[in-house]
């Protein structure tokens, strides 16, 4: 695939994203904050409008026309998610309000039954707070121990002591598929393989992976896989928890309420079947339906082109960054998604972010909800540019100029 094809494709894709056609501070918007949240294609926005203008209704148990349409569309997203993740079993797909909610669900509904005093939970140093704090809360309650896979200077897992970190006491291993702060694609196969040997359950935080490459939960063979719709062209307030049926069935319910019960009585309540057992209350109906359109969009893309284009964006950015004096890139693994985190010597990331914003460029600055990782590198935070399919090489070049100008001003 050559540049020309790529440019044509980007232009076509950008037409789907109305937000990109605007100016910020008098400059065309360049949105490089995709790891925080992706922009949404028109089809997703339209499916929300359509829902509210044509068939908004509470779902399940309805006898009327609107409820029937809404229920059908809602459940069809579950089918799409199941296909997307590679499972046939719709009971294994739980809708939550986001990755954070999914991980908390597991930490509580699985963890409180299965973690006991002295048990160990293994995470890594590059986890997002959402995959640390729920385990800390659990560990504190149960008097369990959190062990941590360290990170190398390149921002990769240091697995040299993995044997010592894993033991019979390790009950769950909860790790990141792709690091949100650095972009590293982690070798989860190794961890999963070794964790299985000690009988630990495995949770993969896939918040940053599903938008970049295909994931098949059955071939990965994890017990849980979590992600958020909003980082995959979908709306906020929607998350997915994939769980293996036998594991989900062994778990206690998480939230109590409507939908998740079979019968309620003050003498005793029985719970509904999967997936409903974990979906208490009115869900984010509109969001989940629109999420279906987001998956349609994502799966309609040419996978090879996505890989090619994202790599080109990353490589172009990495090359120009390295030419800037005092530049340090954090996360230099060969296995990376299109995310680049950096600092320039003597310049605060916040100042860089501010001046880039003045020039229409949206990047994220700060600790990216990975304080332990920042601590490991002894930095307060980084500037992170994260690229999506609708970003162009031209935008990266404008970014290069803007960054050089900003650095000059700040020195």
């Amino acid at each position, binding site marked *: 695939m050559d540049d020309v094809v790529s440019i044509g494709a980007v232009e076509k894709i950008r037409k789907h994203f109305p937000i990109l056609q605007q100016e910020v*501070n*008098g400059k065309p918007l360049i949105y490089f904050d995709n790891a925080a949240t992706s922009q949404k294609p028109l089809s997703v926005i339209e499916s929300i409008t359509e829902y509210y203008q044509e068939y908004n209704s509470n779902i399940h148990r309805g006898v009327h026309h609107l409820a029937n349409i809404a229920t059908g569309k809602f459940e069809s997203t579950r089918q799409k998610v199941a296909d997307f993740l590679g499972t046939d079993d719709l009971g294994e797909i739980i809708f939550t309000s986001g990755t954070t909610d999914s991980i908390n669900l597991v930490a509580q509904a699985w963890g409180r039954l299965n973690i006991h005093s002295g048990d160990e939970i293994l995470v890594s140093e590059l986890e997002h707070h959402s995959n640390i704090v729920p385990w800390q809360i659990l560990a504190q309650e149960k008097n369990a121990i959190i062990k941590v896979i360290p990170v190398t200077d390149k921002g990769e897992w240091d697995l040299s002591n993995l044997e010592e970190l894993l033991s019979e006491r390790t009950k769950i291993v909860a790790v990141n598929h792709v690091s949100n702060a650095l972009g590293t694609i982690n070798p989860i196969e190794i961890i999963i393989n070794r964790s299985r040997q000690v009988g630990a359950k495995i949770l993969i935080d896939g918040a940053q992976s599903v938008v970049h490459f295909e994931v098949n939960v059955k071939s990965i063979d994890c017990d849980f896989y979590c992600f958020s719709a909003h980082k995959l062209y979908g709306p906020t307030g929607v998350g997915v928890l994939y769980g293996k049926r036998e594991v989900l069935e062994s778990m206690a319910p998480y939230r109590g309420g409507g939908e998740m019960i079979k019968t309620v009585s003050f003498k005793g309540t029985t719970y509904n079947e999967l997936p409903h057992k974990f979906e208490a209350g009115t869900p984010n109906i509109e969001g989940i339906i629109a999420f279906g359109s987001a998956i349609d969009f994502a799966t309609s893309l040419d996978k090879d082109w996505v890989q090619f284009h994202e790599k080109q964006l990353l490589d172009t950015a990495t090359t120009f960054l390295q030419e800037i004096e005092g530049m340090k890139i954090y996360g230099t693994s060969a296995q990376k998604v299109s995310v680049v985190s950096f600092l320039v010597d003597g*310049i*605060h990331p*916040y*100042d860089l972010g*501010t*001046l880039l*914003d*003045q*020039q229409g460029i949206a990047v994220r*600055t*700060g600790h990216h909800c990975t304080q332990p990782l920042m601590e490991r590198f002894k930095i*307060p*935070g980084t500037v992170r540019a994260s690229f999506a399919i609708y970003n162009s090489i031209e935008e990266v070049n404008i970014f290069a100029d803007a960054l050089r100008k900003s650095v000059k*001003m*700040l020195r």
Partner: protein
Amino acid sequence: METIEDRQKEIIQEFGMFDDWMQKYEYIIELGKDLPVIEQEFKTEDHLIKGCQSKVWLHADFGADGMVRFTADSDAIITKGLVSLVIRVLDGMNGQDIAQSDLHFVNDIGLTSHLSPTRSNGLASMIKQMKIYGMLAANQQPQP
């Protein structure tokens, strides 16, 4: 003698000369570089202002005449520039006047609407802290 109001007017006039925000930021950065740095001994946890992505340390010296002298620092240069603007307005003023001042220049030069919410909050926290110092000075409290 120059009043707080005079100094604000000066700043408003200066900022009126710039065509765009990049120029304003350039000026703010220059101001940041010029800010007389706080003594190292005051760069401690209790001199830290909360509510910012960047750190701000603020120190106040009270004169016997109720006058307050401010020094400050920040790890981010733009923040430092903003801090220096506020200091320029309030430094050496009477505690009472500081406590009662209305720093409308922040709004007038467009900072309120232009800064990110975190930065605005940080700036607001700092101004609040300076007014507290002003009040303390006015009441002839011992220096904190």
